[in-house]
C-alpha cells in the first residue's frame, strides 16, 4: 500500500532520471491549473513563487498577517551545502553520509541524497536573490562548522540566517503577486482538507479577522505548515506554530509518519517561571567555544566561579572525547537531562547546565569572543538580565524540531493523491535526528527545486478544474462551523492555554528526551483524561471575529489528538534511535541501542477513527551506506 516511488538506478542518477522522465505541461496550458499552497515559510514561499514562475495559478494561505513572519524567520545558525569551498574533503556523498548517519539510519536514502545534491544550486539561488551571506575579505563566501560533522559546510548570515533566507523567498513570492499568478490570503487559517475520491481537491479556510469560512478548490494542495514542537508548550517555536493543518489532513486520510521523533535542542535558555510562554534558543554555534559543565556535587548552591576546576564535571568532553562539546544534538540534550535529573542541575529552578566562555576568553581574548558571539551575548542579557562575559550561561534542552510529519513519497506526495507536503511538515530527510543547518536547506530545496517538478508531473495526468459538488461543499463548511460552535458552547472554567500547558508537562516529563513503557502508558491515560475534560471544562470567550482564544482552542483540540498518536508511536518503537530514547533499550554505556532486525522501518500511521490508530510500515533499504553503530566517542 505504501509505495515510496523511488526511481530505479544508481543513487547519483535517480533525481536526474526522474526529472528527465517527468511529465510536462505545455506553458500555455499551465495557467488552467490551480494549486493551493498553505504556509509561507521557506518551503511554502519558495514553492509558491516557483510554481507561479512556471505559469501555474497559485493561491497562497497563511494565518500570519504577512508572509514574512513565518517561523523560518527565527533560524539563527545557518544552512548546509556541499559546496566544498573549504577544500576540506566535503562532497555530496559525504553530506549524504553524514545526514543518514546523523539521522541514526532511519531516513530514506534516495531523499537524503537528493537534498545534498540540490544543496549546491540552493546557495546559488539565495545569493542571486541578494541574501547577504557572510563573506571573506576576498569577497568569497565564508563557511563554518556545525554539530555532528567534521567539515565546514554551513553558510550563514550573522545570527539571522533564517530571516535572510526567508527575505529572499518572501520577496520572490511577493514579486509574483505583482508580476505573476499568486493570490495571497493572509490571516487565513486552513481548517480542513477537501478530499474527493482519495484526491486532495481543496481546503476549508477561516478568515481570522471576519470569521468567514469558505472553500477554495484546486487541482493540487501543498501543505508547508511547519513543525509542531510547540505541542510541548514550552519550545523554541513561535507561539502560533501548530499541527492543525497536517492533523486535519491526517484525519481526512493522509498518513502520519514517526510522530514521536522530536528533536530537543541542547542550547536553549531554561524555564525561569510558571508564567513562561516559550524558550529562546541560543545558537548552537556557541558550542564551538563554550564549555559545558555542571558541579560534581549534587545540589551545589555555590555560584559558578566559586566552584573550583576539579569540582566541575565537563561531562560532554568526558564522555565524547573526539566530538566533545560539539556532540550531536540528541546526545548532548540527553546528557544534559541526565545531569539535571541526577541532581546536578543549576540555576534558580535547578533545570539548567552551564555553558562557560571563561577559557575561550582567557585564550582568545574578550574582543574575539565578542566579535563572534556579541549579538548572542546581548540577546542573552536582554532576556535574562545576566552578563555571559562574567558568568556562564544557563542552558537547557528544549523541544525544537519535528522530524516526524505527514508521510510523503519520493515526489513529496502523501498517500492522498494531489496532496504535497513540504518542509518541516513532512517526514522525509532527517530520520530520527536532524543535523543542525539541514532543515532550512530541506525546506528550501523542497520548495524551489523538487515540488515544482513533481507537482507538474502529477498535474499532467489531471483534468484541470474539476469542481466539487455544491452540497458536499456546504456540508464541509457546516462541519467546520459546528466544530467551532461546539468549542464556544462548552463554557467551562479552563482556558485553552491552561490545557496546552498541562499537555506540555505530560509530554515533557513522560514522552520527552527519555521514554519508558510504564511511563508512556501513564502519559496515555493522563492525556485521555485531559482530552475528556477539554470537552467539559474548556472556556473560550464568545465572538466569531478576531478571537485569538478560539484559534488557540481549535489548535489545542488537535494537539490533544496528536499527542495520543505521539505516545502510541513512542510505545510501539521498542528500540532507541536518534532522538527517540527508550530507557529499556540502551547499551552498557548508556547510549541509544537500535534494533535493526525489527525496526529498520518508518512507522506510518493511519487514523481509523478518533484515537484509533493503525500502523503501516515503510521498510528502509540501505543500498549505499553500511548501517553501523552511530558513535561520536
Amino acid at each position, binding site marked *: 500500500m505504501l509505495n515510496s516511488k523511488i526511481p530505479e538506478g544508481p543513487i547519483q542518477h535517480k533525481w536526474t532520471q526522474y526529472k528527465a522522465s517527468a511529465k510536462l505541461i505545455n506553458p500555455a496550458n499551465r495557467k488552467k491549473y490551480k494549486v493551493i499552497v498553505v504556509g509561507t515559510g521557506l518551503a511554502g514561499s519558495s514553492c509558491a513563487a516557483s510554481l507561479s514562475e512556471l505559469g501555474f495559478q497559485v493561491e497562497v494561505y497563511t494565518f500570519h498577517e504577512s508572509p514574512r513572519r513565518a517561523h523560518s524567520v527565527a533560524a539563527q545558525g545557518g544552512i548546509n551545502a556541499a559546496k566544498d569551498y573549504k577544500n576540506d574533503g566535503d562532497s555530496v556523498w559525504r553530506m549524504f553520509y553524514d545526514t543518514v548517519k546523523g539521522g541514526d539510519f532511519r531516513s530514506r536514502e534516495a531523499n537524503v541524497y537528493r537534498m545534498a545534491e540540490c544543496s549546491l544550486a540552493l546557495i546559488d539561488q539565495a545569493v542571486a536573490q541578494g541574501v547577504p551571506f557572510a563573506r571573506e575579505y576576498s569577497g568569497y563566501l565564508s563557511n563554518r562548522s556545525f554539530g555532528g560533522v567534521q567539515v565546514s559546510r554551513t553558510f550563514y548570515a550573522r545570527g539571522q540566517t533564517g530571516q535572510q533566507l526567508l527575505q529572499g523567498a518572501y520577496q520572490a513570492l511577493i514579486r509574483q503577486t505583482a508580476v505573476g499568478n499568486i493570490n495571497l490570503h493572509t490571516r487565513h487559517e486552513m481548517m480542513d482538507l477537501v478530499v474527493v475520491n482519495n484526491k486532495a481537491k481543496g481546503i476549508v479556510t477561516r478568515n481570522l479577522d471576519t470569521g468567514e469560512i469558505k472553500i477554495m478548490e484546486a487541482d493540487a494542495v501543498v501543505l508547508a505548515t511547519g513543525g509542531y514542537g510547540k505541542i510541548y508548550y514550552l519550545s523554541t517555536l513561535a507561539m502560533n506554530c501548530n499541527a492543525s493543518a497536517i492533523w486535519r489532513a491526517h484525519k481526512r486520510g493522509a498518513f502520519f509518519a514517526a510522530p514521536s521523533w522530536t528533536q530537543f535542542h541542547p542550547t536553549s535558555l531554561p524555564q525561569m517561571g510558571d508564567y513562561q510562554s516559550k524558550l529562546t534558543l541560543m545558537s548552537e554555534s556557541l558550542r564551538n567555544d563554550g564549555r559545558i559543565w555542571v558541579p560534581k556535587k549534587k545540589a551545589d548552591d555555590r555560584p559558578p566561579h566559586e566552584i573550583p576546576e576539579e569540582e566541575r564535571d565537563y561531562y560532554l568532553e568526558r564522555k565524547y572525547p573526539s566530538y566533545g562539546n560539539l556532540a550531536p544534538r540528541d546526545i548532548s540534550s540527553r546528557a544534559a537531562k541526565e545531569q539535571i535529573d541526577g541532581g546536578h542541575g543549576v540555576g534558580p529552578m535547578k533545570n539548567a547546565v552551564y555553558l562557560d566562555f571563561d577559557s575561550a576568553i582567557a585564550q582568545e581574548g574578550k574582543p574575539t569572543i565578542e566579535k563572534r558571539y556579541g549579538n548572542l551575548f546581548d540577546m542573552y542579557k536582554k532576556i535574562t538580565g545576566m552578563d555571559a562575559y562574567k558568568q556562564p550561561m544557563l542552558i537547557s534542552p528544549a523541544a525544537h524540531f519535528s522530524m516526524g510529519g505527514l508521510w510523503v513519497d519520493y515526489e513529496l506526495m502523501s498517500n492522498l493523491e494531489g496532496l504535497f507536503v513540504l518542509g518541516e511538515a513532512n517526514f522525509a530527510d532527517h530520520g530520527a535526528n536532524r543535523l543542525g543547518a539541514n532543515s532550512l536547506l530541506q525546506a528550501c530545496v523542497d520548495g524551489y527545486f523538487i515540488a515544482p517538478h513533481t507537482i507538474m508531473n502529477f498535474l499532467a495526468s489531471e483534468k484541470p478544474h474539476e469542481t466539487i459538488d455544491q452540497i458536499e461543499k456546504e456540508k464541509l463548511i457546516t462541519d467546520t462551523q459546528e466544530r467551532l460552535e461546539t468549542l464556544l458552547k462548552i463554557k467551562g472554567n479552563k482556558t485553552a492555554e491552561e490545557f496546552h500547558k498541562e499537555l506540555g508537562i505530560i509530554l515533557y516529563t513522560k514522552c520527552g528526551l527519555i521514554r519508558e513503557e510504564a511511563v508512556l502508558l501513564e502519559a496515555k491515560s493522563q492525556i485521555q483524561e485531559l482530552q475528556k475534560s477539554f470537552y467539559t471544562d474548556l472556556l473560550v*470567550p464568545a465572538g466569531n471575529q*478576531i478571537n485569538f482564544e478560539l484559534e488557540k482552542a481549535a489548535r489545542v483540540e488537535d494537539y490533544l489528538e496528536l499527542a495520543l498518536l505521539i505516545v502510541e508511536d513512542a510505545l510501539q518503537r521498542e528500540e532507541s534511535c536518534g532522538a527517540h530514547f527508550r530507557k529499556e533499550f540502551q547499551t552498557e554505556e548508556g547510549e541509544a541501542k537500535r534494533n535493526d532486525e525489527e525496526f529498520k522501518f518508518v512507522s506510518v500511521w493511519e487514523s481509523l477513527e478518533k484515537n484509533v490508530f493503525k500502523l503501516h510500515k515503510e521498510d528502509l533499504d540501505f543500498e549505499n551506506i553500511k548501517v553501523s553503530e552511530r558513535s561520536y566517542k
Partner: protein
Amino acid sequence: MKLIIQVWRQESRDAKGKFEKYNLEGLDENMSVPEMLDFLNEKLIKRGEDPIAFESDCREGICGQCGFVINGHVQSPEKQATTCQTHLRSFKDGEEVFLEPFRATAFPIKKDLCIDRTALDRIIAKGGYIGVNTGQAPEANSILIGHDTAESAFDAAACIGCGACVAVCKNASAALFTGAKISHLSMLPQGKLEAKTRVQKMVAQMDAEGFGSCTFTGACEKVCPQGISLANIVTMNREFWKS
C-alpha cells in the same frame, strides 16, 4: 510585583477606543510584556470579559509581529528592543504602564492592540526584490562581494518589518523601512540592474499607501529594534534622484 496597566481598548476599526485600567498583582519581573498580557487575559476570560486582542509570535524579536507603544515609547522603553523583548524589570513596582497600538493612517487599528501593516508588503511588492526566477542563478562564488559590502547589505536587510519607524514618525513616513530595502538591494552587484525602477515604484507606492514624507528628524533610527541606520534614507534619496 504590582503594576497598574492602562490598555487601549477598541472594539473594531471604526469604533471609538479608550484606555481601560487593570490592577495587576503577583507579576514576576522576568515576565515579558506579552507574557504579562497572557496573565491578564487569563483573568479577564475567567471573569467573563473580553480578553485584550494583541499579536505576537516569535517572542524573541525577529518576526516583527508584536509592537505596541509602551508609556509613549514605540516598541519598548529599552534600547533597540521589541515589545516582546521588554520585561517587567524595566518598570518600577507599582508603576502605571500605558499600552496602546502603533498609530499611523496607513496602519488601521483592527482591534485593541492589533493593527494592519499589510501596506508594508505592498511596498515590497512594487520592487523590493531582485527579479531572479528559480533556476536562473549562476554559481554563487562567481558573484564576488567584498566583506564590508556584504556586512552593510546585511545591516540594511536586518529590518524585521515591524513598522516602529512609521509609528514614531510625526509624518508617519515609511522612509526608513523602504530605504533599508532599497539600499540592501542596490548595494549588491546582482541588485544594481533594477535599481532605477525599484526606487521609483517603491517610493510611489509609499505615497499611495498614505505614508507621510520624511523630514529627517531621525526619530525612526532611535526606536528601530534592529538599529537600521538613517543613512539608508540618504541612499534611497540618492537612488531616487539618480533615477
